[in-house]
């Protein structure tokens, strides 16, 4: 049984709660890219958009992960999920799937857009399994090899 997650939208006042999460020192390069979005503000320009949400997830009061989605600029029917991250100390508990589902739900409700989309690195097996369970695999981005997903079908 996966613990229930609560999402909290980060604001300028609460952004620092990200620092309660731990980075993975042994992260593969593709995972490090997600960490750069979460910890280093690689998508900071989207943080200001009213249609975006930078979220932390807590399970029983402990911050266990984070997610970021924003309104895609050119695809006006798509809310784009740029990052979903689970703290390495809380992995292998099914939280990744629960967090992904929560971020998808939040993205749809908050944006009012009909579709949510994201990409997954082909070596990110855990997120690939989760994405295939939750969404439709659209294709492969040729230059990067990232797999593309969208919800709903």
């Amino acid at each position, binding site marked *: 049984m996966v613990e229930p997650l609560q999402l909290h939208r980060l*604001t*300028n*006042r*609460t*952004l*620092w709660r*990200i*620092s309660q999460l731990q980075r993975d020192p042994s992260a593969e390069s*593709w995972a490090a*890219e*997600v960490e*750069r*979005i979460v*910890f*280093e*503000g*690689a*998508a*900071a320009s989207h943080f*200001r958009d009213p249609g975006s949400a930078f979220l932390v997830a807590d399970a029983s009061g402990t911050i266990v992960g984070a997610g970021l989605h924003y309104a*895609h600029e*050119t*695809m006006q*029917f*798509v809310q*784009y999920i*740029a*990052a979903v991250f689970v703290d390495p100390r809380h992995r292998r508990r099914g939280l990744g799937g629960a967090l992904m589902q929560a971020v998808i739900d939040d993205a749809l409700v908050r944006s009012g857009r009909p*579709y949510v*989309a*994201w*990409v997954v*690195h082909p070596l990110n097996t855990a997120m690939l399994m989760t994405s295939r369970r939750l969404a*439709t695999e*659209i*294709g492969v*981005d*040729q*230059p*990067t090899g*990232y797999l*593309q997903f*969208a919800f709903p079908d």
Partner: protein
Amino acid sequence: MNSFVVSDLARQRREVVDAARDEPVLIRDTDGVMLVLTTEDRQRHIDRVLDLYALHARAEIECRRRHPNPAALGEIAFVADWPAERRHAFLDGLGEALDEARRLGQTEPVDFYIRWHTPFVGPGPSALDPGVTGRLGEALQSRLGR
């Protein structure tokens, strides 16, 4: 705030020091001057908070100029190149993070806010690459019939 007299430093040294570990204590010297005894950590925190408030005030003035001077912006010099609207949004956020830092008695809300907005060197993450999302858009449009 506990207060002592300077002779207590000799007579009740342990009590004074233990009290100062918990919170700053006042020590009245023989000429009436009040001294404050506190931990190094707390003093560093106070110094950092003062620095941050000064930085915020300085930046508010500097960013009203058409071409802000990066040297005057110190650790947030990176905003000098930003468009005015983005600079002001950043400073509003910095002010909110400062309020939160004061409320919590720790500077992490501001320190993290600045770190997170500091532009990093190097290519951006692939997941943010417009090439990825652009192709995703084409695929989605054809697949979803939009």
